[in-house]
């Protein structure tokens, strides 16, 4: 063999992974041996830095105990995956973690508005955006210890009373209206590639103040103190059937984002996807003595607002009629726009760090919440679609 060995082959030789023929050449080639010597010096240096990765006999947690914890975690994941499923509607998925949505949904029933033992909640009449720092939320919804603690809290508190089921396909607006139980509006100038109807869902939850407070403490926000009145509060939420019409190449609505992370960039898979979703306003029942403004303020402070900013924002929002959509403060912007004869909110998140540009146009008309969302610079198309609804 006359060809000199490549660096890769010389490296394989150092690891005892070179084939016999090449090894034969190496033994007789002074040039290759000299290069290998240089390579070995570098490899030894790297190996010394990475030496702590070398297997040792440190004790691992007993496998049987670990198995018990694994089974428990799997069970909790299963429970919460169904809970999260009801938040699959694009209005609440857009750029927001489930926690904030939950907090804000719970914040809708204002004690100012209704009296009595139970508040028979709200109908969304308007949408507004609030820029927040998602760092704390990512901690709660991530895979770390805090995320698991939050997941456990939710799974222990929530009781699904009506599971949403799998979305079913509808042929046109008329069939979608029949299945969903409300008048579905679709732009006549565009042909949807698919229409899905997702059935209604409902859940109730009982607040465990001690655990929720422990979660805040764990997150380093022990300065935020939940009021005693939240302990044991029974809250029920009903989410009506919703309809999603997809334009272009889009994922199916039941797609679980946590399972799609290995499938490549959504920009490549769904570059022209635009989804028009619509849903009658959800409703929430909560105890009358729940201080919603206080809870909303705590939620806003958790997301990075100062106490003054949170108080100021809370005082400007009618929590009984406003869908508050949190957006990442450092990477998204929003503006009020005239749409479908009412005032809506256009949220845009410019492309960054390899993630595609995203947009969502939200508005409420005649008790129905509408959202047009998608990837890329199609906000103008969204406005045109919205303004052409029959």
């Amino acid at each position, binding site marked *: 063999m006359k060809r000199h060995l*490549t*660096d*890769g*082959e*010389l*490296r*394989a030789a150092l*690891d005892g*992974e*070179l084939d016999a023929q090449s090894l034969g050449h190496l033994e007789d080639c002074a040039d290759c041996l000299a290069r290998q010597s240089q*390579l070995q010096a*570098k*490899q030894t240096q*790297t*190996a010394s*830095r*990475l*030496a*702590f*990765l*070398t*297997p*040792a006999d*440190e004790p*691992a*947690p007993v*496998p*049987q105990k*670990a*198995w018990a*914890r*694994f*089974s428990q*975690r*799997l*069970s909790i*994941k*299963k*429970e919460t995956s*169904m809970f999260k499923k009801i938040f699959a509607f694009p209005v609440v998925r857009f750029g927001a973690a489930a926690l904030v949505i939950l907090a804000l949904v719970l914040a809708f029933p204002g004690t100012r508005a209704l009296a009595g033992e139970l508040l028979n909640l709200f109908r969304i009449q308007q949408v507004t955006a609030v820029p927040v720092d998602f*760092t704390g939320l990512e*901690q709660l919804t991530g*895979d*770390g*210890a805090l995320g698991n603690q939050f997941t456990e809290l939710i*799974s222990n508190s*929530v*009781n*699904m*009373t*009506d*599971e949403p*089921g*799998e979305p*079913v396909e509808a042929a046109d607006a008329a069939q979608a209206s029949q299945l969903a139980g409300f008048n579905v509006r679709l732009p006549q100038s565009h042909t949807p590639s698919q229409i899905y109807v997702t*059935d*209604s869902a409902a*859940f109730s939850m009982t607040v465990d103040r001690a655990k929720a407070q422990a979660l805040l403490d764990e997150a380093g926000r022990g300065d935020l103190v939940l009021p005693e009145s939240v302990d044991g509060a029974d809250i029920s939420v009903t989410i009506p059937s919703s309809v999603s019409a997809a334009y272009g190449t889009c994922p199916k609505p039941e797609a679980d984002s946590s*399972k799609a992370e*290995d499938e490549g960039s959504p920009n490549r898979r769904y570059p022209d996807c635009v989804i028009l979703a619509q849903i009658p306003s959800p409703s929430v029942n909560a105890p009358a003595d729940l201080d919603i403004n206080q809870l909303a303020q705590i939620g806003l402070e958790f997301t990075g607002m100062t106490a003054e900013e949170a108080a100021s924002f809370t005082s400007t929002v009618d929590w009984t009629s406003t869908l508050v959509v949190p957006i990442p403060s450092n990477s998204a912007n929003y503006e009020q726009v005239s749409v479908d004869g009412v005032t809506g909110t256009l949220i845009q998140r410019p492309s960054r760090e390899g993630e595609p540009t995203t947009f969502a146009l939200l508005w409420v008309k005649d008790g129905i919440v509408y959202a047009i969302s998608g990837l890329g610079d199609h906000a103008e198309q969204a406005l045109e679609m919205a303004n052409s609804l029959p």
Partner: protein
Amino acid sequence: MKNLKTDVVEASSTDSTPALTGGAGVSSAFEALFLEHWSQVYRALCRLVGDPAEAEDLALETFVRLYQRYPWREAGTNPGGWLHRVATNLGLHSIRGWKRREHYELTAGKYALEETPEARPAEILAQAEERRLVRLALAQMNERQSQLLILRHSGSSYREIAEALDLAPASIGPLLVRAEREFEKRYRALAKEDL
């Protein structure tokens, strides 16, 4: 279209994960697989992230993902490589988190002191600092290069690395050379920043 349930704890027929065997837990086949690989996965993560609690948490998450995604029931599949790849990915992702980096800075020295009480504190802290820089350098590299280095320096053979990362065995040598160069470059840059 809809399953009406009174308690969320019940297993859902619409869930895409394999069926649980009633209230007793997951199937015995998966349990056997878990018990076989648990210690290895945990130890690899413990070395990588340097925090036993975090390592256990990530190891459990690795198995949850295996259960949910990998076709582990298919005959002939060996999940060892898959587990290694996912575990190291989770470990690297964890290191990248800025919150956790602060955590590592605090805990690296603590665990080292606990493990080797006879050594001098200054030496231990210096070693801990070096490991922190190594972890950061690995976390900064592209995923495949980091995986290569971690797998190789954890003792995996070229064949095992090739299986885990879906690469040709003959490509491992050249890729290792490039990965080690990249690692040294990043490590030195980080060490310089720290001066």
